[in-house]
């Protein structure tokens, strides 16, 4: 049997058999999902409405009882009301704050708002402040309209809402609804995932190499297989772990999607319903757009491109990380070599934020061609549609790139794994690359 295969098998099995792999694979998506939803969930936890004392000299809030999360209790606006209110606030824990609105001067609502104050013993939620501010603004706005002799009701009726649906005209003449926001999110998420995956698995290669070096088993192994074979076997084995994990994640997500669309979202995902919703001018428009966006994305292309760029990026960086691992005696020594490797990855991530807004700019083009950044940047572009020649060129360059880094890394690796003690410098690495043995 080919030794690369035997090595890859070991790398794969030892990792897949670990309990942490099972947990990460099954719970990973759930965990990530929770991480995204948790803050929203926490924020929306039902909390009893806050009670505010109101001293309203301006009569701006007359008749208001509060809002969903605030209850107003008015004090008679006597001259001493503010002082009394503060006393109540200090002694009576029933109230969370005291809202003070000064008397208006020249009936100017702006004066009231500029001098309005909210007293409290503890910090109040920002959402509560914002809610009260909104309400005051609305009241002042209506007040101003009245001062100008305009009926606020008329203004309300005159309000309209314009929404543009952006339509991309394809080569074949088909038209496609193209909600850019959704593509931006999808693209950025895909690019980000590539970044995380490449980092996660390339680091595993590095750790594996360091483990073999520090446990001194490496010389035993390379008396049986060539260093290059050991390195390639390790890279292949860990790549298989990543692929398996990815496939399980996609499978789980698909199953979840199927389960949801069969029950809860059955209506929402029915194309007829979407068509109906789109036909309605206002109410369902937004939701329908998102749904149609979900349907308009070319998932097979994105998935296969993701697999390609994950593998390509992983191979490109994985070989270099293996070289780094071979050059050091302990993980703590890797930092100086890690910096030049992580920099392009982080740069790619930063660039993709810009690319997401203008996916066809020269910046986007060039960064999606350079193999060190193309996996992240190209994934950000793909949901927006990329010409096939660009995709092809970028992929070809990536293949060339990882062949190049693998060659370079193997030159360092074969010498690094047998070098103990002395801390290697970049100069040493370069010497190893050039030396015949």
């Amino acid at each position, binding site marked *: *049997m080919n*030794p690369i295969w*035997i*090595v890859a098998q*070991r790398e794969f099995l*030892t990792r897949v058999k670990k309990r942490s792999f099972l947990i990460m694979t099954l719970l990973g998506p759930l965990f990530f999902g929770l991480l995204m939803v948790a803050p929203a969930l926490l924020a929306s936890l039902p909390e009893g409405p806050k009670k505010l004392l109101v001293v309203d000299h301006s009569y701006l809030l007359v008749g208001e009882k509060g809002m969903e999360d605030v209850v107003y209790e008015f004090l008679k606006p006597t001259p001493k009301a503010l002082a009394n209110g503060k006393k109540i606030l200090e002694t009576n824990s029933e109230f969370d704050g005291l809202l003070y609105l000064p008397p208006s001067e020249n009936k100017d609502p702006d004066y009231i708002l500029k001098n309005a104050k909210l007293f409290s013993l503890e910090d109040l939620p920002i959402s509560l402040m914002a809610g009260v501010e909104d309400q005051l603004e609305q009241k002042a706005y209506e007040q101003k309209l009245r001062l100008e002799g305009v009926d606020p009701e008329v203004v309300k009726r005159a309000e309209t809402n314009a929404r543009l649906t952006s339509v991309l005209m394809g080569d074949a003449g088909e038209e496609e609804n193209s909600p850019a926001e959704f593509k931006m999110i999808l693209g950025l998420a895909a690019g980000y995932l590539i970044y995380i995956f490449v980092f996660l698995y390339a680091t595993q290669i590095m750790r594996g190499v360091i*483990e*073999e070096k520090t*446990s*001194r*088993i490496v*010389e*035993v*192994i*390379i*008396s*049986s*297989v*060539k260093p290059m074979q050991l390195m390639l076997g390790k890279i292949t084995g860990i790549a298989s772990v990543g692929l398996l994990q990815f496939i399980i994640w996609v499978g789980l997500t698909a199953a979840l999607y199927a389960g949801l669309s069969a029950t809860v979202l059955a209506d929402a995902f029915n194309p007829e319903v979407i068509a109906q919703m789109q036909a309605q001018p206002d109410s369902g428009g937004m939701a329908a757009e998102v749904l149609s966006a979900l349907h308009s994305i070319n998932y097979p292309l994105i998935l296969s491109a993701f697999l390609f760029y994950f593998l390509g990026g992983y191979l490109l960086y994985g070989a270099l990380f293996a070289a780094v691992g071979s050059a050091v005696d302990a993980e703590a020594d890797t930092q100086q070599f890690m910096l030049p490797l992580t920099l392009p990855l982080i740069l790619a991530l930063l660039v993709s934020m810009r690319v997401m807004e203008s996916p066809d700019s020269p910046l986007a083009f060039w960064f999606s061609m350079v193999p060190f950044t193309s996996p992240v940047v190209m994934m950000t572009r793909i949901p927006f549609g990329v010409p096939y020649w660009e995709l092809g060129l970028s992929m070809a360059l990536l293949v060339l790139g990882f062949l190049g880094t693998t060659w370079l890394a193997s030159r360092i690796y074969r010498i690094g794994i*047998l070098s*103990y003690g002395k801390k290697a410098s970049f100069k040493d690495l370069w*010497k190893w690359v050039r*030396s*015949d*043995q």
Partner: protein
Amino acid sequence: MIRAENISKRYADHTALNDVSLHIPKGSLYGLLGPNGAGKTTFLRILNQIIDPDAGQVLLDGRPLQRNDIARIGYLPEERGLYKKMAVGDQSLYLARLKGLSEAEAKKRLVYWFEKLGMESWWDKKIEELSKGMAQKVQFVTTVLHQPEVLIFDEPFSGFDPLAAQQIREEMLELHRNGTTLLFSTHRMENVEEMCTHIGLINKSRRVLEGSVAEVVRSHRTHRYTVIYQTPDGLALSAEATAPFQVVSDEALPGSDWRTGRSLCVQLTANEGLNHVLGALLPHADVLEAHESVPSMNDIFIQTVQNAAS
């Protein structure tokens, strides 16, 4: 079996081997000697094709070493270890498969060796649960498992506790009796005298001495003889009795010796022998023991290295 011809290997800052030629005969138990840093490990790595020489070549059975020859060689490096978190059985199987054994065959042989060395209960244990000596036994087994024709050990006894070292020594001797060619490097001379049929000595990246142990010793004879004797009066021999020889020393046996008597060391010429000594001494004393004093391997080692230095 193995013939290394004019091997040279230079590193950036020093020369590890300089025009070294060594011959390891088939079936020999070959000890590669040399001070630390002499180039022994580099030489062994070249034999295992871990590194390539800058010049020269290695012949195995008369033809240049090839990649698939690694299946015929077993190698236990000085810097040896195992995966700490992997079960003993699993990694023994893994290493055996890397040497080209099928999984079934590897398992069969492992069971045999594990029983032989009393290691049956270790199969599912992780290396980190074993002692250092135990781990080294596992390493030994994985080195010999594919039944190579040539076994190469780099400093095999360093780091072993005396009992384990003894066990490994016996296994090596048994492999030697069964016809395996063994080559090991060491700086401990007593191993060489006990075990080896052949030695090679490398110093400062050059070969300074090679041959069968018998040849080497023969060529380092000093024609000195030692006689343990007892005179009736318990005194030293008279000058008259020792007149035919050049006396190197004549002193009472050390207190640690159970016998009472004296030890005489004499220097003869190349064509004289033990009979010559005995013939002259027997009329004057009881001879308890008489033998030629051949230099120990340690003496030869030190002398050769010093000669090379001067």
